[in-house]
């Protein structure tokens, strides 16, 4: 009995839950506002489902003979990804070195470099491609430019982040034997980072193959162009062929690249 009384007495006050309620209310408000803003209703989705079913029915069976028409565009897609990734990777090297706090000596160097990198990384590849199309005209070249910028941003970011975690021991040793800046990087930094760097390049290549496959939607080359062609003529069985073909190539490249990356690290 007395034990109960003591326990009742000693019960600490529960912390206020007001913050939780406010946060939950705020999130609900945002989502509700978003739904209103985008005219998203469940009813519309349900109304649309029959259309969707029709579409899927039209897509199957895929028209396999269309593969002959798009094989060349697929090769162009892979070419674009390869060239874009390679040039982007080369450009990413100096950028990553500039952004890494333990390599770029002054904060006046790496803070602006990082800011610039982050600003570049705000633009998605398809948007970059659209801009480059308006500058350079239609064709794979603006697509490649977009991929170069995008790859540079991604590889530089991943690389500088792992650069900052490298072992400072060898760097100190090189400083103590009197190495100059270039020697310091070649003998102290690069051996520690090259496997990671290659792995990031491969990873970016995987992403770029996917990206290059849709750049054609804005006229920047590759197989994406054929989405517009087939959808425009309501040839959904051909669209389906494009989708499946792209998926197969993407998964194959992913598989090979993943195996290679596992070997590297």
């Amino acid at each position: 009995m007395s034990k109960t009384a003591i326990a009742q007495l000693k019960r600490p006050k529960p912390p206020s839950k007001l913050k939780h309620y406010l946060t939950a209310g705020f999130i609900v408000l945002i989502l509700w506002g978003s739904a209103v803003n985008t005219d998203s209703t469940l009813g519309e989705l349900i109304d649309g489902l029959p259309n969707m079913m029709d579409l899927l029915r039209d897509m199957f069976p895929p028209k396999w003979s269309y593969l002959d028409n798009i094989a060349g565009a697929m090769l162009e897609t892979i070419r674009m990804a390869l060239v874009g990734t390679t040039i982007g990777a080369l450009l990413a090297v100096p950028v990553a070195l500039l952004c890494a706090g333990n390599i770029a000596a002054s904060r006046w160097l790496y803070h602006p470099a990082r800011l610039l990198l982050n600003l570049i990384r705000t633009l998605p590849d398809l948007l970059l491609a659209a801009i480059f199309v308006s500058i350079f005209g239609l064709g794979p070249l603006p697509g490649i430019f977009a991929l170069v910028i995008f790859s540079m941003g991604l590889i530089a970011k991943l690389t500088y982040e792992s650069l900052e975690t490298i072992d400072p021991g060898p760097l100190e040793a090189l400083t103590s034997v009197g190495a100059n800046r270039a020697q310091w990087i070649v003998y102290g930094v690069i051996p520690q980072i090259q496997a990671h760097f290659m792995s990031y390049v491969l990873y970016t290549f995987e992403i770029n193959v996917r990206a290059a496959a849709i750049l054609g939607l804005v006229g920047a080359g590759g197989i994406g162009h054929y989405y517009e062609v087939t959808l425009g003529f309501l040839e959904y069985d051909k669209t389906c062929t494009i989708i499946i073909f792209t998926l197969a190539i993407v998964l194959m490249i992913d598989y090979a690249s993943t195996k290679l990356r596992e070997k590297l690290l």
Partner: protein
Amino acid sequence: MIQIRNITKTYPNGTKGLNGITLSIARGEFIAVVGLSGAGKSTLLRSINRLHDITEGEILIDGSSITRASGRELRSIRRDIGMIFQSFNLVKRATVLRNVLAGRVGYHSTLRTILGRFPERDLDIAFRALDRVNIVEKAYARADELSGGQQQRVAIARVLAQEAKIILADEPVASLDPLTTKQVMDDLKGINQELGITTIVNLHFIDLARQYATRIIGLRAGEVVFDGPVSEATDERFAEIYGRPISQDEWLGVPAI
């Protein structure tokens, strides 16, 4: 209270975790299970509440078979058996109180527990359990803010809130320092004596087993090689259980206070 009838546990690869164990455990006993690691102590304990299934034999809890129970019946038998773990098994990000209340979920419907509508009586039980292990002021702290000894006491409070008739403790002090070890063992012993809860503890340290238990069971390679009161568990018998002379690691080395 607990009838273990000729149980055997065979793993898929053919090794035997438990081999023909028969035990009878009476209400209110405080049993220490000792043996080398890999002797089957943990498997035996987890067979009693069926966290592990046994291959042959049967276990009766208060006369009903947990071996044959399933679904709701199994859960209601488990509700009467509290368990304490070496690594505490608290949800580290949840509050102490919520961890203790988790011991009450077996009494209520899924919906009620998920909505957090525990009755006032349950809250009282939870706070009293925390008070019993002297940690009530931490009720709203996050479990990971507590020290190891405090966390184990929260785990004990969880079992108390469960209002179990049996407590199984699997190496409850193996992750604790000698001083907190003593506090936790004192708590377990006090609960055993005052509330009459049957307690079975897996222990590594010989001196702790002798100091706290009323009965010692020795396991070796999945078989019971010793079963008797503390007075009979001499150093020689321990050496037999271990199959080698007792080594320094088997002593906690803190004198009884």
